């Protein structure tokens, strides 16, 4: 009986914890959204920090990311093409390549890439700012941390994931064409027709929304996890661990919901 009560209590505490975390995140997001709509937010200083964030998150890693996208795309395209040939489904190869790579795998891998590189850095930095009282110091100087530190990171994350996923998608489309038709203009018409058939308005809007949600997940969750850190230095690794686990689950959840909406 005691064991049952303890289990229910522990489960209840966990559920309450999850709700508290979710509430914290949505409250933070609402605050950021309100600030985003406020005209006074959009001064030169905020704009400069957003540019800096996009540079650190997307531009600085562009060469590594492009190499990574090229290798992944080449591997997946080769697997799809050889499998399609084996089963006599060559005419579906281009559509399958676009659906698997451009719509699903590349945005997902882009989000993971940004989460591992920038999400973990954001989580650590915000946790250290929290532990070292840097946020209190900014508040004392009446420099708004949301406007100066957090909002540019959210915007930068969304812009970076959307553009990098778009770029990786374009590379995959080009590689797909070259792998299927080679260096010849003969396949241009059927290939572009397949692209046009797949990318209707709904799919495009869904893809952009999914990438934007990925971008939000890889920045919002690390920021809120960092802000939750108790003011003890040894809690910083725990905060990063929790934050990155939440980011991973959020990315998977977004992908699963997107797949379910598309195919079920």
């Amino acid at each position, binding site marked *: 009986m005691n064991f049952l009560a303890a289990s229910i209590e522990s489960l209840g505490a966990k559920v309450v914890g999850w709700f508290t975390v979710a509430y914290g995140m949505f409250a933070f997001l609402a605050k950021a959204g309100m600030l985003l709509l406020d005209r006074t937010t959009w*001064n*030169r*200083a905020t704009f*400069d920090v957003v540019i800096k964030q996009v540079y650190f998150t997307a531009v600085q890693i562009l060469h590594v990311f492009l190499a990574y996208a090229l290798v992944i795309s080449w591997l997946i395209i080769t697997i799809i093409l050889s499998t399609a040939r084996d089963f006599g489904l060559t005419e579906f190869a281009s559509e399958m390549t676009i659906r698997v790579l451009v719509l699903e795998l590349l945005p997902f891998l882009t989000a993971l890439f940004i989460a591992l590189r920038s999400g973990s850095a954001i989580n650590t*930095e915000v946790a*250290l*700012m929290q532990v*070292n*009282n*840097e946020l*209190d*110091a*900014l508040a*004392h*100087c*009446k*420099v*708004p941390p949301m*406007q*100066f530190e957090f909002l540019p990171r959210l915007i930068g994350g969304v812009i970076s994931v959307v553009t990098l996923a778009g770029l990786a998608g374009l590379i995959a489309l080009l590689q797909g064409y070259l792998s299927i038709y080679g260096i010849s203009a003969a396949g241009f018409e059927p290939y572009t027709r397949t692209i046009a058939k797949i990318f209707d308005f709904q799919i495009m809007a869904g893809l952009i929304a999914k990438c934007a949600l990925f971008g939000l997940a890889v920045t919002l969750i690390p920021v809120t996890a960092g802000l939750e850190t108790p003011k003890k230095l040894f809690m910083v690794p725990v905060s990063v661990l929790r934050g990155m686990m939440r980011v991973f689950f959020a990315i998977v959840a977004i992908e699963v919901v997107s797949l379910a909406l598309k195919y079920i």
Partner: protein
Amino acid sequence: MTALPGDVARVALDLPLRANLSALDNIALIPLYQRHFSAAESARQAQAMLDQLGHADIALLRDPDMTPSQRFVTKLARAIILKRPRLVIDRPGAMLYDVPYPEFIRQLAAQDAMAGTWEIFDFSWNQALYQA
């Protein structure tokens, strides 16, 4: 410390600099975000403040690269540029452990452009250091 009135600019150990910003950027944040000056003008004002305090050379240093006295000067510059009616230096011994600090603060306060009164809150047992 949260009970302190809003007209006080504090220089204290528990109000650190932003670690990933240079001394200049830490000071320039104030005119940039509070008075909405351009980035260039804010940086100019911040540099002028460091010049007035006689530490122009620390402008590009980040917090981990500064000595305790350089860090103190940056915090002091940040507090002065806030332009609040009162400037409080809270337990300077905790921040200035590499120099004889009453003399160091006296020298900073004696710079030509410094105005107003700086209030120093320190432990009573350190009183003798100020009378030396």
